[in-house]
Every structure is written in structure tokens, then in C-alpha cells.
């Protein structure tokens, strides 16, 4: 588990080729199934180039895993779906352009739930990813491959995407750090869309410092994503080991029924630790939290039913035998999408259809207003909110996959953040047996500085993030 700075020293002393080769060997031996595609040849080629060009750039020569819903020119991009069989993007996502300019080396494409729909990485067409801490358990999702790769030392850094918790959930289950930035801070250009009003790309690493370094590289406005915003900031300058005077809000709704007692205790202990370091905490009320899960799923499914209309077998991906126009599309889609994706498209279509639009979609959007107001009210009194990321540690493979509601309920503490568009970082704060527990630090719109500083201070004064899975 090497940090960016340690890797840089080694790259200067040895070479990027050597570092990349070491990671490729670990990936090859691994049984976690964290990757759908390993970009061995292009990674080594790029490492050689960087070695001969003198290691310029903040991530020069450092390998990174990319969630397989982020477009990478010349490298297969599948969204973990059969329907994108054979698809090779002819262009790079904005974040990939930025990573390449910074000297980073794409080592492979990380496994995920199909089209990012899931919280366990079990809906992948390419089989589930296993949790490095206990291979009978899920790594969380939907960015399970990205988190497992970092936790299992298969890559020092990775990117995921977070629509309703898909970065924070696997960060929590795999004991690594994952950030969901404010909506709009990172361009979504080249991110294959699931629910575009909710999702953001987010970085993973083993420390708050490395997550922040990666975040500094990939953030920024891009005219190709009209929802991206211009907030020039140097996030790394927020990393100060000091929380004196920080006001923490504790939303009791996030510690509700169904929260594991070890999770509850670890997160409250973490808040105590920050108080000992000079912060204060008060309870805050977020009364509309109980409607967040339903509102989230209605909105996400509705947007998905529209976004996934583009997969018709004409321009890319799977094509079945031709019949007439509509039948061909219907058959391509029936053959290419997995069950969870079909379920969400069907429910989203239903929620938007004549006669049901107001009852489901419009109602969910009104509740979204109430959720956002909950956050605005809370942030009048406090600087950050701290809560469990997930109500429990990683569950068993197969435990929830056949019961959609029980799987959706796992997202109860993560989805309100996406509905409100605020930033949140998940970091390790304890263990339940050998399974990591994560807490999330949530901030105001564009106040990444406050959550990064809080998370950094906690990390500097504890050692949860230094523990590693065995084997």
C-alpha cells in the first residue's frame, strides 16, 4: 500500500516501467476480479514514454484503475454490460484527458455493477468482484472494482462514479477513502450516463492526501458538460491537521433502525475523537431523510429509462439478427441488458408514463426540494455533518441480490447527498471483526475544503487507514 509520494520517489529512483510491472503482476495473480480489462500493453508503453520524458506532471508514471463506465480512447469500455460487447471508445472522457496530462498511467478498467446499478458489484456481466478483506463478501458498489483494486494493492489510485453512493459505499466496505464531490465540480463528459442529475465522478485512494491530489488533477470546468462549474481551487491546500472550532452536525436520522451497533459506535467514537481535537458537535434534524430512498430511486430510474434509450445496437455494441425496426431494438435490448437494468428501465418508464408522472416522478422531485432544504437548514448551524456511510459492514455475496428492496435499503445514508448535490467523503473509522467501517463527512455545496480538512485531521490522529487486508 504505497502513497503517491512513495511511488514518486521509487519512480525517480527506479522507473515507472518497474512500478507498473509490479502492479500488473499483482493483478494477474489476484482472485478478486477487480478488473474487466487490464491494459497491459498500453500501460507499459506509456510508462516507457514517461520514463524517457523525465517524469513531468503531478501523477507522472503512477498507475490508476478506471471504472468501466468512463470512456478511455482505444481501451474497451463495457459498463459491465453485455450490450456494450466490443465497444472501444474513439475518445477520452474529460477526466482521462486530465489524468494523461498529469502523467498518470491507465492500468485497467475496473469492474462495477452493470451500468452502475447496484450496491454490491454483483450485477456485473463479468461476474462479481470479491471484497479483499473477506472474499465471501461483496466489495460494495457500484464502483466495487475501483475500491477493491485500491484496497487489494492492485492499483494505488482509482476513479469511480457516485450516483447514489457508488463511490462511498465500496470505499466503506473495502476500507479505503472515496470522495463524491459537489455536483458540477468534475466534468461528466465521457462518463456513460445512468442518472445524470445525480452522478459525479469521484477519486479513491488509501489516504485523504492521495484522494485530494487526484481530485486536484481531475476537477475543473469543461464546456462539453454544461452542468460543470468553474471553481478554480487548490484542494490540497485545505489539508491542515486542525479542527479547532469546527462545528459538527450529527443527523440522528442516519443512525436509525437497521444500523449495526459496531457502525453506530465507531462513528460516534470518531466524532468524540474530533471533539478531543477541538471540534464541537450538536444534533441536527433532517426530517425528510425518510423519503430520500424512494425519491432517489424514482428519479434515478426515470433518468435511466431515458439515458439508456441510446443502446439500440446500431452505433455500437451488441446487435442481434435483424427483424423490423422496433422488434430489432427490443431484441437487442432484451439480449444485452441484465435483469436489474431491465427492472430499472421498466420502472422508470412506468414512473414517467401518462397517468403516473405526477404520482411518482413529480412527487419525487418535490421531495428532492425538501431534502435539499434539510441540508441548507442544517448547514446554517454547522460546518460539516458526520454519519455512517453504510448502515452495516460488507454483506455476503448472494445475501441480498434476489431481494431488490433489501439491496436498495443499503443506500439509505448515501442517497440524500446526491439528491442535494452536496459533497461527501467516506473514510475508514473502525472495524467490525476484520471488516472495515466507514464514516462520511458531508459538506456544503463547494465546501470540499471543510470535509477534506476534517477527514485529514481524523486520519492524521488515528490509524484505521493504515490497516491492510491479509493475503
Amino acid at each position, binding site marked *: 500500500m504505497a502513497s503517491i509520494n512513495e511511488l514518486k520517489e521509487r519512480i525517480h529512483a527506479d522507473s515507472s516501467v518497474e512500478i507498473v510491472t509490479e502492479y500488473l503482476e499483482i493483478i494477474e495473480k489476484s482472485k478478486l476480479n477487480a478488473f474487466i480489462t487490464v491494459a497491459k500493453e498500453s500501460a507499459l508503453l506509456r510508462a516507457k514514454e514517461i520514463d524517457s520524458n523525465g517524469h513531468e506532471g503531478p501523477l507522472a508514471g503512477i498507475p490508476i484503475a478506471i471504472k468501466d463506465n468512463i470512456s478511455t480512447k482505444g481501451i474497451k469500455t463495457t459498463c459491465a454490460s453485455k450490450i456494450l460487447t*466490443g*465497444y472501444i471508445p*474513439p475518445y477520452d472522457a474529460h477526466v482521462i484527458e486530465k489524468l494523461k496530462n498529469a502523467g498518470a498511467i491507465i492500468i485497467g478498467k475496473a469492474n462495477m455493477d452493470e451500468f452502475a446499478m447496484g450496491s454490491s458489484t454483483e450485477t456485473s456481466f463479468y461476474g462479481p468482484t470479491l471484497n479483499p478483506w473477506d472474499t465471501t463478501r461483496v466489495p460494495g458498489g457500484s464502483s466495487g472494482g475501483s475500491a477493491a483494486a485500491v484496497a487489494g494493492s492492485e492499483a494505488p489510485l482509482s476513479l469511480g462514479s457516485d450516483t447514489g453512493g457508488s463511490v462511498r459505499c465500496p470505499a466503506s466496505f473495502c476500507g479505503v477513502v472515496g470522495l463524491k464531490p459537489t*455536483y458540477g465540480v468534475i466534468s461528466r463528459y465521457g462518463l456513460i450516463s445512468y442518472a445524470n*442529475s445525480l452522478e459525479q465522478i469521484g477519486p479513491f485512494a488509501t489516504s485523504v492526501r492521495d484522494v485530494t491530489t487526484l481530485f486536484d488533477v481531475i476537477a475543473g470546468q469543461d*464546456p462539453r458538460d*454544461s*452542468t460543470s462549474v468553474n471553481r478554480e481551487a487548490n484542494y490540497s491546500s485545505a489539508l491542515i491537521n486542525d479542527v479547532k472550532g469546527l462545528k459538527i452536525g450529527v443527523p440522528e436520522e442516519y443512525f436509525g433502525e437497521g444500523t449495526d451497533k459496531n457502525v453506530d459506535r465507531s462513528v460516534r467514537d470518531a466524532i468524540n475523537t474530533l471533539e478531543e481535537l477541538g471540534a464541537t458537535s450538536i444534533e441536527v434534524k433532517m426530517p*425528510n431523510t*425518510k*423519503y430520500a*430512498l*424512494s*425519491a432517489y*430511486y*424514482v428519479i434515478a430510474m426515470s433518468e435511466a*429509462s431515458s439515458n439508456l*434509450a441510446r443502446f*439500440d445496437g*446500431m*452505433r*455500437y455494441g*451488441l*446487435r442481434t439478427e*435483424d*427483424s*423490423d*425496426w422496433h*422488434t*430489432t*431494438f*427490443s431484441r437487442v*435490448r*432484451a439480449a444485452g*441488458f441484465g435483469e436489474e437494468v*431491465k*427492472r430499472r*428501465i*421498466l*420502472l422508470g*418508464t*412506468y414512473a414517467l*408514463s401518462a397517468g403516473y408522472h405526477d404520482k*411518482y416522478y*413529480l*412527487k419525487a*422531485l*418535490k*421531495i*428532492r*426540494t*425538501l431534502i*435539499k432544504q434539510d441540508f441548507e437548514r442544517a448547514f446554517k448551524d454547522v460546518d460539516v455533518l458526520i454519519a455512517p456511510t453504510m448502515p452495516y459492514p460488507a454483506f455476503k455475496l448472494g445475501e441480498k441480490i434476489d431481494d*431488490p*428492496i433489501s439491496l*436498495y435499503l443499503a443506500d439509505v445514508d448515501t442517497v440524500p447527498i446526491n*439528491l*442535494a*448535490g452536496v459533497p461527501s467523503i467516506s473514510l475508514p473509522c473502525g472495524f467490525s471483526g476484520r471488516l472495515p467501517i466507514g464514516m462520511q463527512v458531508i459538506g456544503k*455545496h463547494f465546501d470540499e475544503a471543510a470535509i477534506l480538512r476534517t477527514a485529514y485531521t481524523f486520519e492524521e490522529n488515528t490509524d484505521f487507514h493504515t490497516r491492510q487486508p491479509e493475503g
Partner: protein
Amino acid sequence: MITKKDLEHIGWLSRLELSEEDREKYTPRLNSVLDYFGELDKADTEGVEPLYHVMPMSNVFREDVPAASLSQEEALSNAPKNQNGFIKAPRMM
């Protein structure tokens, strides 16, 4: 409550061919999710405006100037069926 007959219609709107077996399997599962969505009815949203987008931005314009784009060859490189520089679609009727 969705019936098997409704599901046939939703499948058509979604352009997803569903077999008899699929409809048998999906109907109760979709209904259990819809039951859960019943929670929404309990929220008082009288006079509350819908929130489509979290940032207060609309009509984001840019200059209409041509920029580099994909070549025809690149744009067609992923199409499973293409011919003479066109994507080949199925027949309409």
C-alpha cells in the same frame, strides 16, 4: 399495481422484448418496489416546487464555432453493421 398486461405495454414503451416467463417473474418484483414507493404519498409537498437540478443554472450557452470532431471512420468504427460510410439500420416495416 402493475398487471402482466400492463407490463407488456411498459415493455413496448421501453423497447424491451419480454417473454411470458419474464413477465411472470418481473410483475411481482416490480410491484414490491412500487409498494415501497408508496412512502412518497406520506410526504406533504403542498406548495413545494419540484427540483430538477441542484445548481441554479439554466440556458448555458457557448459560442457556436466548429471544433475538431471524430472522422467518419472513427465515428463508424463501433457500428456492428455499416456500409459505404453509413450505419445500416433494420427495415422500417
